[in-house]
Each structure stands twice: as C-alpha cells, then as structure tokens.
C-alpha cells in the first residue's frame, strides 16, 4: 500500500546570485518500507526530505505535480494541518542533533514535554516512557542522560536521544536525515536494527537519507541515487554495489577498503559526460 507518493518535485531558491534549483523533478513512492536516498552533499537529499513536511522556508519554493500522504494532499494542506502531521504522523530526525535539541533544556524534560502536553500524561508515567525510549535506542545509563544538558552528550548520544524523541509519538513515516553519520559501526548497527524493528513491527515507512552507500545498501529496501537535484538511478538496495550509473559507480570506487592497496584513492571524474 502506498503511504507517500511524490511526483515531479521541484525545490527552487531565488537568491541574489540567481535561481538555485535544489531539487529538479524528483518522483518516488513509498509504502511501509525503507527507502534510501544517497548522493553527495548538495545533491538535494535534505531538501527532498524537508519538502515532504513542507519545511522549506522562503526564499525556497516547493512545486510538485502531486504530493500525497495517506490520502492527504500535502500541497493543498493548510499550515495548521501540516503542524498536526509533523511529529505525530510524519517525524524527521535531522542531520545534526545540536540544532534539533533545545540547548537550555535538560534531555529528560525535552523527551517528556510532548508526552505531558500532547498526551496529557502524568509526570511519573512520562518519565517511565522517556526512560523506555532511551533504553530502546540502547542508551546504557538512561537516568544520567535524562539529567544531562544537550552539550554534555557526545555526538552519538545526541543522535540517539533525537531518534528516541521522534519515535515516542509512534509516527507512520519517519524521515531520518543522516541519523547515524556520527556513530561508529557497532552503535550504528544497533540503531539501525532499532529502526528496522520499528518499520517491521509498527508498519512504519522510513526515508533514510545518507551519504554512506554501504550503509544504505545493507539497510534499505530500495534506493534513490541523487546527483545535482535529480534521481540518476533507482534500484533495489541489495544491488547498489552493482550499480549501473557511472556516478554511482564512481562514488563506490572512492571508498577505501580493508586490506586494499595504500595507493591514493581514485577521485570522482566530474568532467565526464554524465556530470554535465
């Protein structure tokens, strides 16, 4: 069943230096599955993700032939309708927890805020829920983290706190923008298995944005490869290592490998025909 469908999405910024076309005609649809979006920085991944929540601020503009979430027309929806969707139904974990966590509020308070205000939960119950959410993202010492200020968390901790916070209202669709880029491989695997579990057991849809091709190929069902605001290749995630597009192949070739030669790593050829 389709949860989200996007047709011919364009995101444009009118700047003093001229028009920046950040997203140029992107189409995709998503069921209760894991869709990966990969590509280098600046390729339009974040703008694509934010468009679904209509979180593009002026001078940015969103246009699309169609953008539909669970029967709701996201283009026509009022700002009020959008606010009701953001969080409870579509949640987004941002690239950098530093900018998403409130720096002057303790972690525990931030986790409990929505539960108390939105769900009218008592203090004790909200506290227990928050601890549970932190434990679900494998935080070893949840009581200490509840008491911590955001600046006291390491990057990996901050990222896990963010994911815990987004998952508390049980959304239908989670847009995770580079959620594990700051984590080491073992913790990354743990966090991914948590996300994986949620997609399966809660029937949640997931848009997983990452510049890490290997991670996406392991973790997602389908992958969109973006370059300069366009989708250059769409393929099953397990086939990513066998990608056909020269851009995708070029990105894969740049990666160092355990046991590989100590020679300089190959660079991406940006002058090839496909790059124009």
């Amino acid at each position, binding site marked *: 069943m389709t949860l989200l469908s996007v047709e011919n999405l364009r995101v444009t910024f009118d700047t003093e230096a001229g028009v920046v076309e950040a997203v140029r005609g992107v189409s995709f649809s998503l069921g209760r599955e894991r869709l990966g979006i990969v590509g280098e*920085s600046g390729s339009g991944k974040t703008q694509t993700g934010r468009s679904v929540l209509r979180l593009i601020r002026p001078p940015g503009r969103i246009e699309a032939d169609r953008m539909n979430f669970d029967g709701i027309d996201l283009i026509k929806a009022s700002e009020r309708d959008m606010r009701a969707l953001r969080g409870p139904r579509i949640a987004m974990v941002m690239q950098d927890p530093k900018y998403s966590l409130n720096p002057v509020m303790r972690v525990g308070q931030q986790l409990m805020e929505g539960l108390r205000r939105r769900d009218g939960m008592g203090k004790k119950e909200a506290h227990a829920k928050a601890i549970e959410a932190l434990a679900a993202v494998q935080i070893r010492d949840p009581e200490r983290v509840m008491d*911590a200020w955001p600046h006291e968390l390491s990057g990996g901790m901050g990222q896990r706190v963010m994911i815990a916070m987004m998952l508390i209202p049980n959304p239908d669709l989670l847009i995770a923008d580079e959620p594990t880029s700051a984590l*080491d*491989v*073992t913790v990354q695997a743990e966090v991914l298995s948590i996300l994986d579990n949620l997609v399966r057991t809660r029937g949640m849809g997931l848009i997983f944005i990452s510049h890490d091709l290997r991670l996406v190929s392991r973790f997602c069902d389908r992958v969109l490869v973006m370059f300069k605001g366009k989708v250059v290749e769409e393929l099953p995630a397990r086939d990513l290592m066998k990608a056909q597009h020269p851009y995708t192949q070029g990105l894969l070739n*740049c990666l*160092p490998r355990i046991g590989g030669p100590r020679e300089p790593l190959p660079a991406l050829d940006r002058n090839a025909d496909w790059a124009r």
Partner: protein
Amino acid sequence: MALIEIENLSVTFTAKGRPVRAVKGVSLAVEQGESYGLVGESGSGKSTILRAICGLAPVSGGTIRIGGQPLPSPRGADFSRRVQMVFQDPYASLHPRHTIDRTLSEPLAIHGIGNTDQRVTQALKDVGLPPNFRFRFPHQLSGGQRQRVAIARALMLEPSILLLDEPTSALDASVQAETLNLLNRLCAERGLTFLMVSHDLAVIDHMCDRILVMQHGQAVEELPREALAKAEMKTDYARSLFAASADRMLDA
C-alpha cells in the same frame, strides 16, 4: 623512544557531581613518522585521549610524554608548534565570521612568525585550494573545502604531530577520498606523525600502521594493520567490530 608515549592514562569528568571515568588506564606509544589509529564505539574515550594530549581534559592519572618530555600545564606555545588537532566538523571548528585569511594568519601572529602573506598563500596551495579563497568566509566553502582549510590551519605552525578526530566522517565518499589522499601526501612530504580517530575501519586500515581498539574507556587490543585484514584479532570485542565492517572488505 617513541614520539608520543601515553602511560596508564586516566581521565575523569565530573557530571552532576558524579564522576564519569572516560579513560581508564590506557597506554600506547606512537613512533616518529607512524600513523596510529584509535577505533571503538562512541563514548569509548577516543576523543578524550586526543583532548587529554592537548591539555583539554581532566587527567586523573598516568603520564603523557612527547619526545620523552612530560607536558607542561597549560601546554603553552611550544606545544602548539609541535602538536595540532583537526576535528570532525570543520564548520564548528572554524570561526564563522573570520575570513580564511584571518583563520590562517592568526596562529602566525600569535607565535610571532613573519612572512604571513607568503605562508598563507603557500598553505592554501599545499592543501589544493586556489589563492583567492583567502578572502572567503567558511559558509562560502563546501564541507570538503572547509576541512582543507582546517588542515591548512593545523599545518601553519609546521607541527610534527597531527591529532585527527574523525577528520572525514562528515564528508562524502568523493571528498573523503580527496582528504585522505591529501593527508597521506602531506604525511609523506613532511614526515608527520598521525594519531587518528575514526569509526570507519576501512579509513583506519587505509591510513594507519597500528590500531588500538577501545571500549568503555579501556584499551581492548592493539593490532598491526596486517592483522586487521587477516582478521587476526584476539578479543571478542575487536572481532565484533571487525564483523560489523564486513562490507568494508576489499572483496565485499
């Protein structure tokens, strides 16, 4: 005698009146000209070790020596001429309202080194940036260009040791490749010694001669590079870290 000698180092933070033992009795030695890697899960104390070397962490035990000498506290000017650090996030580590020119010339001014113009131009050239980038601000550069500036700044005082904390983790595959190539070239040209943290075992394998695996603030196992590719680790934790990197193997 190794260039960097860390013996039984412990670091204890205090958070909410409670002690947090971030590093517990870690010892390691890095030879002159060697590249030494620190790996391990997040929170295992890798960054804290680099910060302790720079005098930026509350050391509660053990010793750190560079070139056989214990380090003074505060570290002082001599130290910054020998040891420099590069961080994961070049955006956070560059002053947003200072031009690249100012960022690169400031260390020279502080240390009373002249010939600023020529040195700044040369530094940009060394990291492969055009000379007119001097007059730009960090937000006018891409992530990879900013990391080049951060590396250029670290090299302004011609240090012999670079401490690299996840220097390419925020970068794309293509930009990571360029940055790693740059670091390796500079290392070869200048005989630099690297102490490098990364969560990517393939990056560590590409860059480092020896690797220390850390967990919960402790040293778990030290491996020469060859042992990594051959999966010759002795501890379960190092093996699990390696197993989680199966897709980073040469023939994956």
